[in-house]
């Protein structure tokens, strides 16, 4: 990635083409201007709102860290931790279950099966939101088909709980993991296994010393990607559980729509800022890992 960019750079420096470069600027400007307006403005508004309080009596605005402090206390903190816990558990399970599935698909001799699973993964990884929630309500909800036929309610089953949400989230997290890890698994050269075997390594030793170290960046990258995906999810939980489970996205939605208290909008913005910080951290971990795995598997 970096190498090709450098090569292109030197090539264009060797034969400078002023007219083309100016054309490039002109074509990129609308895109940058648009993002500055449609993305930058809301982002700045969020940042600004997170650090201000309006005095309802005088209408004066003051800069303060009160909102941020409030967003890390009480019910808001519970919600934030609830989201982190739910995302961590479902991302861990998703990675753990997605890896063997991807491995089974990659090593399969049937091309059609591979294509079918990868296509289906592409569809299912994007199948979040409302339809997913309703599919699970119809399956495992209080009046769901499986719940009724297997009598799950008597056995203590409840879809509208932490583990219920984990099961639902796995529905789009496992396919996402399959998509993320498949290129890395395909990059494991058969020669490496043969070389390990020729040197007398057992399959366990091959995995422990060769395959896993090469896969590790991709695995960790997939893990944080899944975490971010679960962390940001709102529609599924909102359509399914309302706000009975403390999640930061549900709290923000409540505060924005004024369901809780008037004047909590800025705390919602502070909570949003907390989310952005967590998501930013996730990306800061993910991108270097991705670059690292690209080095091995190019």
């Amino acid at each position: 990635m970096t190498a090709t960019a450098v090569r292109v750079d030197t090539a264009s420096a060797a034969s400078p083409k002023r007219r083309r470069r100016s054309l490039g600027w002109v074509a990129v400007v609308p895109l940058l201007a648009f993002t500055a307006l449609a993305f930058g403005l809301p982002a700045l508004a969020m940042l600004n709102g997170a650090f201000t309080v309006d005095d309802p009596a005088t209408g004066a605005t003051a800069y303060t860290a009160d909102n941020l402090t409030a967003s890390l206390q009480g019910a808001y903190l519970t919600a934030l931790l609830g989201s982190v816990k739910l995302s961590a558990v479902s991302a861990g399970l998703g990675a753990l279950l997605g890896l063997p599935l991807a491995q089974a698909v990659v090593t399969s001799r049937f091309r059609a099966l591979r294509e079918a699973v990868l296509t289906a993964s592409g569809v299912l990884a994007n199948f979040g939101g409302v339809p997913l929630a309703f599919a699970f309500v119809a399956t495992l909800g209080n009046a769901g088909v499986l719940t009724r036929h297997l009598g799950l309610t008597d056995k203590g089953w409840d879809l509208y709980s932490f583990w219920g949400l984990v099961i639902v989230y796995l529905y789009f997290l496992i396919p996402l993991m399959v998509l993320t890890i498949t290129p890395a698994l395909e990059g494991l050269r058969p020669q490496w296994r043969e070389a390990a075997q020729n040197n007398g390594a057992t399959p366990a030793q091959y995995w422990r010393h060769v395959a896993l170290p090469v896969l590790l960046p991709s695995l960790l990258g997939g893990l944080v990607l899944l975490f971010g995906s679960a962390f940001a999810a709102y529609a599924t939980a909102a359509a399914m559980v309302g706000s009975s489970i403390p999640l930061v996205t549900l709290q923000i939605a409540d505060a924005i729509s004024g369901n809780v208290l008037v004047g909590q909008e800025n705390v919602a913005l502070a909570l949003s800022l907390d989310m952005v910080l967590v998501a930013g951290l996730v990306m800061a971990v993910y991108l270097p890992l991705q670059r690292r795995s690209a080095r091995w598997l190019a």
Partner: protein
Amino acid sequence: MARLNLWRWGVLGLAGLYFLVPLAASVVFTVDVPGQGVTFDAYTRIFATEGFTSSLLLSLELAAATIAVVLLLTVPAVVALRLGSPRLRPVVEVVCSLPLVVPPIAFVAGIGTVLRWGPEHFSRTPLFQTFVAVQNPDFPFVLVLAYVVMALPFVYRALDAGLRAVDVRTLVEAARSCGANWPQALLRAVLPNLRGALLNASFLTLALVLGEFTVAQLLGFRPFAVWIVNVSGSQAQLSVAVSVLSLLVTWLLLLALAGVGGRTRPTSRG
């Protein structure tokens, strides 16, 4: 070897079970109503239900506008980056990935704040009319703005991947040598070679807009996904039936894409 195969089929079987049962159960849920037996009532009722056509049309219009805007913005930029401004590439790459860092719910919180500035600060200026216009309930353009931002990372990657397979510089130079002017070279030489990537990007955007719930609901508009949730309170069977249908439609769209796009996979995430 036999042990390995057994393990593989076990894994695939379990996965198949987990992914197919909810779909099958949803279909059963909609046709097998307790006390009524098997009936397709839920599906026939969909079209007669108030709000179905209008919300679906609104979603489709929003999708069309979003696809048009996002392609008009990204295609020239990505092609220009390939042709002449490699130094701008990292900038555009970062700008197009930034929306991934901001979860939709945080994004909509920011948009809501900006929209409140309209009545608070600009009510006496001509700018106020713009604030009103973008929030027109018949066609909320503010949603198009938000969706373009949310689609940007996926569209950029799809186009970038498509361009990687094409030698744009040579194509344009060949077209120019044959006497084509710049627009002709782009429209008739570059774009046809990008057909797969363009379709890929369009379908991803379409799927995103049709399923989008967070932004629309919190800004108080009622496209398709919001309508389904509103209906679910009173008519559970109906809302599941609509969910099944919308999944089928998305699935067919993406499968069609896989067919048209040839070897490209229907997602840019991998």
